[in-house]
Protein backbone atom coordinates (compact mmCIF):
# COMPACT_ATOMS: atom_id res chain seq x y z
CA UNK A 1 0.00 0.00 0.00
CA UNK A 2 1.18 3.47 -0.86
CA UNK A 3 -0.44 6.66 0.44
CA UNK A 4 -2.56 8.75 -1.91
CA UNK A 5 -0.49 11.45 -3.61
CA UNK A 6 0.55 14.41 -1.48
CA UNK A 7 3.20 17.12 -1.53
CA UNK A 8 6.08 16.71 0.89
CA UNK A 9 7.52 19.77 2.58
CA UNK A 10 10.20 19.84 5.20
CA UNK A 11 10.45 22.23 8.15
CA UNK A 12 13.82 22.87 9.77
CA UNK A 13 12.50 24.88 12.70
CA UNK A 14 9.31 25.58 14.66
CA UNK A 15 9.07 28.96 12.96
CA UNK A 16 9.28 27.37 9.52
CA UNK A 17 6.73 24.71 10.47
CA UNK A 18 4.26 27.40 11.53
CA UNK A 19 4.91 29.39 8.34
CA UNK A 20 4.22 26.30 6.25
CA UNK A 21 1.01 25.39 8.07
CA UNK A 22 -0.19 28.98 7.68
CA UNK A 23 0.58 28.76 3.97
CA UNK A 24 -1.29 25.49 3.42
CA UNK A 25 -4.09 25.86 5.99
CA UNK A 26 -6.48 22.93 6.19
CA UNK A 27 -4.66 21.12 3.37
CA UNK A 28 -1.52 20.77 5.48
CA UNK A 29 -0.74 18.20 8.15
CA UNK A 30 2.30 17.91 10.39
CA UNK A 31 4.32 14.70 10.14
CA UNK A 32 6.32 13.74 13.24
CA UNK A 33 7.52 10.12 13.48
CA UNK A 34 4.76 9.08 11.11
CA UNK A 35 3.89 5.85 12.90
CA UNK A 36 0.25 6.78 13.38
CA UNK A 37 -0.25 9.04 10.38
CA UNK A 38 1.45 7.07 7.60
CA UNK A 39 -0.49 3.85 8.35
CA UNK A 40 -3.74 5.86 8.23
CA UNK A 41 -2.66 7.42 4.94
CA UNK A 42 -1.88 4.02 3.45
CA UNK A 43 -5.42 2.96 4.33
CA UNK A 44 -6.79 6.23 2.85
CA UNK A 45 -8.28 7.06 6.26
CA UNK A 46 -6.20 10.24 6.12
CA UNK A 47 -5.47 12.03 2.84
CA UNK A 48 -3.70 15.32 3.54
CA UNK A 49 -2.72 17.34 0.49
CA UNK A 50 0.55 18.48 2.03
CA UNK A 51 2.71 16.76 4.64
CA UNK A 52 4.97 19.06 6.63
CA UNK A 53 7.80 16.89 7.92
CA UNK A 54 8.99 17.97 11.37
CA UNK A 55 11.84 15.43 11.36
CA UNK A 56 14.61 18.01 11.05
CA UNK A 57 13.22 20.20 13.89
CA UNK A 58 15.84 19.16 16.44
CA UNK A 59 14.93 22.01 18.80
CA UNK A 60 11.87 20.02 19.92
CA UNK A 61 13.77 16.92 21.03
CA UNK A 62 14.81 17.20 24.69
CA UNK A 63 14.03 16.07 28.22
CA UNK A 64 15.11 18.52 30.90
CA UNK A 65 14.42 19.36 34.49
CA UNK A 66 12.81 22.72 35.09
CA UNK A 67 11.21 24.33 38.09
CA UNK A 68 9.18 21.50 39.65
CA UNK A 69 8.49 19.77 36.35
CA UNK A 70 10.13 17.86 33.56
CA UNK A 71 9.94 19.59 30.18
CA UNK A 72 9.79 17.26 27.21
CA UNK A 73 10.07 18.45 23.62
CA UNK A 74 7.15 17.23 21.54
CA UNK A 75 9.43 15.51 19.03
CA UNK A 76 11.18 13.41 21.67
CA UNK A 77 10.96 9.80 20.58
CA UNK A 78 9.49 6.98 22.66
CA UNK A 79 12.94 5.37 22.58
CA UNK A 80 14.48 8.47 24.19
CA UNK A 81 11.78 8.62 26.89
CA UNK A 82 12.22 4.91 27.60
CA UNK A 83 15.98 5.26 28.12
CA UNK A 84 16.07 8.66 29.85
CA UNK A 85 17.85 8.50 33.20
CA UNK A 86 16.20 11.75 34.23
CA UNK A 87 12.74 10.30 33.61
CA UNK A 88 13.64 6.98 35.23
CA UNK A 89 14.57 8.95 38.33
CA UNK A 90 11.82 11.55 38.37
CA UNK A 91 8.78 10.23 36.42
CA UNK A 92 9.36 6.50 35.97
CA UNK A 93 5.74 5.93 34.90
CA UNK A 94 6.33 7.90 31.70
CA UNK A 95 9.62 6.15 30.89
CA UNK A 96 7.99 2.77 31.44
CA UNK A 97 4.83 3.56 29.46
CA UNK A 98 6.90 4.86 26.54
CA UNK A 99 8.72 1.52 26.56
CA UNK A 100 5.38 -0.26 26.14
CA UNK A 101 4.49 1.54 22.90
CA UNK A 102 4.62 -0.70 19.82
CA UNK A 103 8.02 -2.35 19.38
CA UNK A 104 11.63 -1.14 19.24
CA UNK A 105 11.37 -0.08 15.60
CA UNK A 106 8.22 1.94 16.32
CA UNK A 107 9.87 3.51 19.37
CA UNK A 108 12.85 4.56 17.22
CA UNK A 109 10.47 6.71 15.12
CA UNK A 110 7.36 7.57 17.12
CA UNK A 111 7.28 10.74 19.22
CA UNK A 112 5.38 11.75 22.34
CA UNK A 113 3.93 14.84 20.66
CA UNK A 114 2.84 12.86 17.63
CA UNK A 115 1.13 10.29 19.81
CA UNK A 116 -0.71 12.91 21.88
CA UNK A 117 -1.76 15.04 18.89
CA UNK A 118 -3.02 11.90 17.13
CA UNK A 119 -5.37 11.34 20.09
CA UNK A 120 -6.02 7.64 19.78
CA UNK A 121 -7.65 6.54 23.07
CA UNK A 122 -6.06 3.10 22.60
CA UNK A 123 -2.55 4.60 22.72
CA UNK A 124 -0.47 4.39 25.87
CA UNK A 125 0.82 7.93 26.29
CA UNK A 126 -2.44 9.95 26.24
CA UNK A 127 -3.72 8.18 29.38
CA UNK A 128 -0.25 8.39 30.92
CA UNK A 129 0.00 12.18 30.61
CA UNK A 130 -3.57 12.40 31.89
CA UNK A 131 -2.65 10.43 35.03
CA UNK A 132 0.40 12.66 35.45
CA UNK A 133 -1.64 15.91 35.18
CA UNK A 134 0.72 17.11 32.47
CA UNK A 135 0.39 20.46 30.74
CA UNK A 136 0.67 20.59 26.97
CA UNK A 137 2.21 23.62 25.30
CA UNK A 138 1.07 24.57 21.80
CA UNK A 139 2.41 27.31 19.57
CA UNK A 140 0.37 29.01 16.88
CA UNK A 141 0.02 32.38 15.21
CA UNK A 142 -1.35 33.82 18.48
CA UNK A 143 1.64 32.64 20.47
CA UNK A 144 2.15 29.97 23.10
CA UNK A 145 -0.85 28.34 24.82
CA UNK A 146 -0.97 26.10 27.90
CA UNK A 147 -3.47 23.24 27.74
CA UNK A 148 -4.06 20.94 30.72
CA UNK A 149 -4.00 17.29 29.62
CA UNK A 150 -7.53 16.95 31.02
CA UNK A 151 -8.78 19.47 28.40
CA UNK A 152 -6.64 18.36 25.46
CA UNK A 153 -8.33 15.20 24.18
CA UNK A 154 -11.73 15.76 22.56
CA UNK A 155 -12.47 12.42 20.90
CA UNK A 156 -11.08 9.80 18.57
CA UNK A 157 -8.33 11.60 16.59
CA UNK A 158 -9.57 14.97 17.90
CA UNK A 159 -7.83 17.42 20.19
CA UNK A 160 -8.28 21.10 21.06
CA UNK A 161 -5.31 21.97 18.85
CA UNK A 162 -6.21 24.47 16.14
CA UNK A 163 -5.26 23.44 12.59
CA UNK A 164 -2.45 26.01 12.61
CA UNK A 165 -1.13 25.14 16.07
CA UNK A 166 1.85 22.90 16.81
CA UNK A 167 2.24 20.95 20.03
CA UNK A 168 5.74 21.89 21.18
CA UNK A 169 6.28 20.73 24.75
CA UNK A 170 4.85 18.48 27.43
CA UNK A 171 5.36 19.62 31.03
CA UNK A 172 5.11 16.81 33.53
CA UNK A 173 5.00 17.70 37.23
CA UNK A 174 7.42 15.67 39.31
CA UNK A 175 5.18 13.56 41.57
CA UNK A 176 5.28 14.48 45.25
CA UNK A 177 6.87 11.88 47.57
CA UNK A 178 3.44 10.80 48.85
CA UNK A 179 2.25 10.23 45.27
CA UNK A 180 5.37 8.44 44.03
CA UNK A 181 3.73 5.03 43.61
CA UNK A 182 3.02 4.20 39.99
CA UNK A 183 1.96 1.37 37.73
CA UNK A 184 1.19 0.81 34.07
CA UNK A 185 -0.95 -2.14 33.05
CA UNK A 186 -1.67 -3.03 29.45
CA UNK A 187 -3.77 -5.93 28.25
CA UNK A 188 -3.13 -7.00 24.67
CA UNK A 189 -3.66 -10.06 22.53
CA UNK A 190 -0.19 -9.93 20.99
CA UNK A 191 3.04 -8.27 22.06
CA UNK A 192 2.90 -5.27 19.75
CA UNK A 193 -0.84 -4.59 19.76
CA UNK A 194 -2.62 -1.57 21.10
CA UNK A 195 -4.12 -2.05 24.53
CA UNK A 196 -7.55 -3.64 24.63
CA UNK A 197 -7.65 -1.87 27.99
CA UNK A 198 -4.82 -0.20 29.87
CA UNK A 199 -4.34 1.62 33.16
CA UNK A 200 -1.86 4.30 34.23
CA UNK A 201 -1.59 5.03 37.95
CA UNK A 202 0.46 7.79 39.57
CA UNK A 203 -0.19 8.18 43.28
CA UNK A 204 -3.97 8.28 43.60
CA UNK A 205 -4.51 9.42 40.01
CA UNK A 206 -5.88 6.67 37.79
CA UNK A 207 -6.32 6.98 34.00
CA UNK A 208 -7.72 4.43 31.60
CA UNK A 209 -6.61 3.49 28.08
CA UNK A 210 -9.29 2.59 25.54
CA UNK A 211 -12.32 2.81 27.83
CA UNK A 212 -13.94 5.75 25.96
CA UNK A 213 -13.43 7.96 22.92
CA UNK A 214 -10.68 9.73 24.83
CA UNK A 215 -8.38 8.63 27.63
CA UNK A 216 -10.36 9.08 30.87
CA UNK A 217 -9.65 9.40 34.56
CA UNK A 218 -11.31 6.69 36.66
CA UNK A 219 -13.12 9.22 38.83
CA UNK A 220 -15.02 6.60 40.83
CA UNK A 221 -11.78 4.85 41.76
CA UNK A 222 -10.12 8.12 42.72
CA UNK A 223 -13.09 9.09 44.93
CA UNK A 224 -13.04 5.69 46.63
CA UNK A 225 -9.29 5.95 47.27
CA UNK A 226 -9.72 9.42 48.73
CA UNK A 227 -12.35 7.98 51.08
CA UNK A 228 -9.86 5.35 52.23
CA UNK A 229 -10.95 2.34 50.17
CA UNK A 230 -8.59 -0.61 49.76
CA UNK A 231 -7.41 -1.44 46.19
CA UNK A 232 -10.00 -4.18 45.55
CA UNK A 233 -12.81 -2.00 46.85
CA UNK A 234 -11.70 1.05 44.85
CA UNK A 235 -11.11 -0.98 41.67
CA UNK A 236 -14.75 -2.10 41.67
CA UNK A 237 -15.57 1.46 40.51
CA UNK A 238 -13.16 1.32 37.54
CA UNK A 239 -15.77 1.23 34.78
CA UNK A 240 -18.00 3.96 36.22
CA UNK A 241 -18.54 6.79 33.77
CA UNK A 242 -16.72 5.03 30.93
CA UNK A 243 -18.12 4.20 27.49
CA UNK A 244 -15.94 1.39 26.15
CA UNK A 245 -16.21 0.42 22.50
CA UNK A 246 -17.32 -2.84 20.96
CA UNK A 247 -14.93 -4.33 18.43
CA UNK A 248 -13.33 -7.56 17.27
CA UNK A 249 -11.12 -7.65 20.37
CA UNK A 250 -13.65 -7.19 23.14
CA UNK A 251 -17.22 -6.38 24.08
CA UNK A 252 -17.95 -3.38 26.31
CA UNK A 253 -18.75 -5.72 29.22
CA UNK A 254 -15.43 -7.51 28.82
CA UNK A 255 -13.59 -4.18 28.71
CA UNK A 256 -15.36 -3.12 31.92
CA UNK A 257 -14.24 -6.37 33.53
CA UNK A 258 -10.67 -5.82 32.33
CA UNK A 259 -10.70 -2.28 33.70
CA UNK A 260 -11.65 -3.52 37.17
CA UNK A 261 -9.03 -6.28 37.13
CA UNK A 262 -6.25 -4.09 35.75
CA UNK A 263 -7.00 -1.17 38.08
CA UNK A 264 -6.77 -3.47 41.07
CA UNK A 265 -3.45 -4.86 39.84
CA UNK A 266 -2.19 -1.35 39.21
CA UNK A 267 -3.21 -0.06 42.65
CA UNK A 268 -1.57 -3.04 44.32
CA UNK A 269 1.62 -2.61 42.28
CA UNK A 270 1.70 1.15 42.93
CA UNK A 271 1.15 0.46 46.64
CA UNK A 272 -1.52 3.12 46.75
CA UNK A 273 -2.74 3.42 50.33
Amino acid at each position, binding site marked *: *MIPAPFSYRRADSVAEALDLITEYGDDGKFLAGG*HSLLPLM*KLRLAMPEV*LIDLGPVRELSYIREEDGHIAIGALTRHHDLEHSELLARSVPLLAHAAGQVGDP*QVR*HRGTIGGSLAHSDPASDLPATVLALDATLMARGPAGLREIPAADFFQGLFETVLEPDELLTEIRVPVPAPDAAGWSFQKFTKRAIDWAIVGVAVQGRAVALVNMAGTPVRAAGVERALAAGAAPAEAAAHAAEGTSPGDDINASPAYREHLARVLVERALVEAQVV
Partner: protein
Amino acid sequence: MVNGAPVAAEVEDRTLLVHFVRETAGLTATNVGCDTTSCGACTVLLDGESVKSCTVLAAQADGRQVTTVEGLAGPGGELHPMQRAFRAEHGLQCGFCTPGMVMASVSLLQENPHPTEAEVRAGLEGNLCRCTGYHNIVRAVLAAAELEVTGSAGPAEERAS
Protein backbone atom coordinates in the same frame (compact mmCIF):
# COMPACT_ATOMS: atom_id res chain seq x y z
CA MET B 1 23.44 7.06 1.65
CA VAL B 2 22.53 3.40 1.35
CA ASN B 3 25.08 0.93 2.70
CA GLY B 4 27.73 3.62 2.65
CA ALA B 5 27.23 4.66 -0.98
CA PRO B 6 25.32 7.73 -2.09
CA VAL B 7 22.06 6.96 -3.89
CA ALA B 8 20.44 10.02 -5.45
CA ALA B 9 17.11 9.88 -7.20
CA GLU B 10 14.05 11.99 -7.79
CA VAL B 11 11.09 10.02 -6.49
CA GLU B 12 7.43 10.70 -5.99
CA ASP B 13 6.78 12.39 -2.64
CA ARG B 14 4.77 9.42 -1.38
CA THR B 15 7.52 6.86 -2.08
CA LEU B 16 8.13 4.62 0.92
CA LEU B 17 11.68 3.88 2.00
CA VAL B 18 11.22 0.14 1.41
CA HIS B 19 10.29 0.76 -2.22
CA PHE B 20 13.19 3.17 -2.64
CA VAL B 21 15.59 0.57 -1.29
CA ARG B 22 14.21 -2.25 -3.43
CA GLU B 23 13.38 -0.49 -6.66
CA THR B 24 15.61 2.57 -6.84
CA ALA B 25 18.69 1.28 -5.03
CA GLY B 26 18.08 -2.23 -6.40
CA LEU B 27 18.66 -3.88 -3.02
CA THR B 28 15.98 -6.54 -2.88
CA ALA B 29 16.95 -8.43 0.26
CA THR B 30 14.67 -6.18 2.33
CA ASN B 31 11.21 -7.69 2.06
CA VAL B 32 7.74 -6.20 2.13
CA GLY B 33 5.76 -8.43 4.46
CA CYS B 34 2.61 -7.09 6.08
CA ASP B 35 3.00 -3.50 4.86
CA THR B 36 1.29 -2.38 8.10
CA THR B 37 4.21 -1.80 10.53
CA SER B 38 3.55 -5.14 12.19
CA CYS B 39 5.81 -7.91 10.85
CA GLY B 40 9.25 -6.31 10.71
CA ALA B 41 10.30 -8.01 7.44
CA CYS B 42 11.21 -4.57 6.03
CA THR B 43 13.43 -3.59 8.97
CA VAL B 44 16.52 -1.59 8.00
CA LEU B 45 18.81 0.66 10.01
CA LEU B 46 18.30 4.41 9.76
CA ASP B 47 21.33 6.17 11.23
CA GLY B 48 22.15 2.87 12.91
CA GLU B 49 18.74 2.25 14.49
CA SER B 50 16.15 -0.31 13.41
CA VAL B 51 13.07 1.08 11.64
CA LYS B 52 10.29 -0.46 9.59
CA SER B 53 10.93 0.89 6.12
CA CYS B 54 7.30 0.40 5.03
CA THR B 55 6.39 3.21 7.43
CA VAL B 56 9.12 5.71 6.61
CA LEU B 57 8.99 7.97 3.56
CA ALA B 58 12.04 7.84 1.32
CA ALA B 59 12.17 11.62 1.71
CA GLN B 60 12.49 11.24 5.48
CA ALA B 61 15.72 9.30 4.92
CA ASP B 62 17.18 12.03 2.71
CA GLY B 63 20.68 12.88 3.91
CA ARG B 64 20.73 10.04 6.39
CA GLN B 65 22.44 6.64 6.55
CA VAL B 66 20.37 3.62 5.55
CA THR B 67 21.79 0.15 6.12
CA THR B 68 20.21 -2.98 4.68
CA VAL B 69 21.27 -6.56 5.22
CA GLU B 70 23.36 -6.32 2.03
CA GLY B 71 25.48 -3.73 3.80
CA LEU B 72 26.44 -5.86 6.78
CA ALA B 73 29.16 -8.05 5.27
CA GLY B 74 32.73 -6.81 5.20
CA PRO B 75 34.52 -5.62 2.03
CA GLY B 76 35.84 -9.12 1.30
CA GLY B 77 32.42 -10.63 1.73
CA GLU B 78 33.10 -11.91 5.24
CA LEU B 79 29.83 -12.21 7.06
CA HIS B 80 28.85 -9.98 9.97
CA PRO B 81 28.86 -11.80 13.34
CA MET B 82 25.05 -11.69 13.34
CA GLN B 83 24.89 -13.35 9.92
CA ARG B 84 27.42 -16.00 11.04
CA ALA B 85 25.39 -16.65 14.16
CA PHE B 86 22.11 -16.98 12.23
CA ARG B 87 23.80 -19.53 9.95
CA ALA B 88 25.48 -21.43 12.76
CA GLU B 89 22.36 -21.62 14.92
CA HIS B 90 20.01 -22.27 12.00
CA GLY B 91 18.15 -19.06 12.83
CA LEU B 92 16.06 -19.24 9.68
CA GLN B 93 13.69 -21.58 7.95
CA CYS B 94 12.01 -20.13 4.85
CA GLY B 95 14.17 -17.01 5.14
CA PHE B 96 11.53 -14.39 4.39
CA CYS B 97 11.72 -12.70 7.79
CA THR B 98 15.50 -13.14 8.02
CA PRO B 99 16.78 -9.83 6.57
CA GLY B 100 14.53 -7.87 8.91
CA MET B 101 15.22 -10.20 11.80
CA VAL B 102 18.99 -9.80 11.33
CA MET B 103 18.76 -5.99 11.12
CA ALA B 104 16.53 -5.78 14.20
CA SER B 105 19.00 -8.02 16.02
CA VAL B 106 22.00 -5.89 15.02
CA SER B 107 20.20 -2.81 16.37
CA LEU B 108 19.27 -4.68 19.53
CA LEU B 109 22.88 -5.64 20.30
CA GLN B 110 24.08 -2.11 19.61
CA GLU B 111 21.76 -0.87 22.33
CA ASN B 112 22.23 -3.81 24.65
CA PRO B 113 25.42 -5.78 23.90
CA HIS B 114 24.78 -8.40 26.60
CA PRO B 115 21.07 -9.16 26.54
CA THR B 116 19.40 -11.89 28.51
CA GLU B 117 17.24 -14.35 26.62
CA ALA B 118 14.15 -12.49 27.84
CA GLU B 119 15.59 -9.19 26.59
CA VAL B 120 16.24 -10.73 23.17
CA ARG B 121 12.66 -11.97 22.97
CA ALA B 122 11.31 -8.55 24.02
CA GLY B 123 13.71 -6.79 21.67
CA LEU B 124 12.46 -8.80 18.70
CA GLU B 125 8.77 -8.35 19.48
CA GLY B 126 8.38 -6.29 16.33
CA ASN B 127 9.52 -9.10 14.04
CA LEU B 128 7.32 -12.02 13.12
CA CYS B 129 8.50 -15.40 11.83
CA ARG B 130 5.65 -17.25 10.17
CA CYS B 131 7.72 -20.47 10.35
CA THR B 132 7.72 -19.88 14.13
CA GLY B 133 11.47 -20.38 14.20
CA TYR B 134 11.90 -18.14 17.21
CA HIS B 135 13.94 -20.44 19.45
CA ASN B 136 16.85 -20.64 17.04
CA ILE B 137 16.60 -16.96 16.18
CA VAL B 138 16.96 -16.12 19.88
CA ARG B 139 19.87 -18.56 20.16
CA ALA B 140 21.49 -16.89 17.18
CA VAL B 141 21.26 -13.43 18.74
CA LEU B 142 22.69 -14.70 22.02
CA ALA B 143 25.49 -16.45 20.09
CA ALA B 144 26.19 -13.25 18.15
CA ALA B 145 26.50 -11.33 21.41
CA GLU B 146 29.05 -13.93 22.46
CA LEU B 147 30.86 -13.70 19.10
CA GLU B 148 31.10 -9.94 19.31
CA VAL B 149 32.56 -10.24 22.79
CA THR B 150 35.08 -12.98 22.10
CA GLY B 151 35.62 -12.19 18.43
CA SER B 152 35.96 -15.89 17.84
CA ALA B 153 33.81 -18.75 16.75
CA GLY B 154 31.87 -19.94 19.74
CA PRO B 155 30.85 -23.51 20.42
CA ALA B 156 27.82 -23.10 18.17
CA GLU B 157 29.92 -22.35 15.14
CA GLU B 158 32.20 -25.27 15.87
CA ARG B 159 29.16 -27.53 15.95
CA ALA B 160 28.04 -26.22 12.61
CA SER B 161 31.38 -26.68 10.86
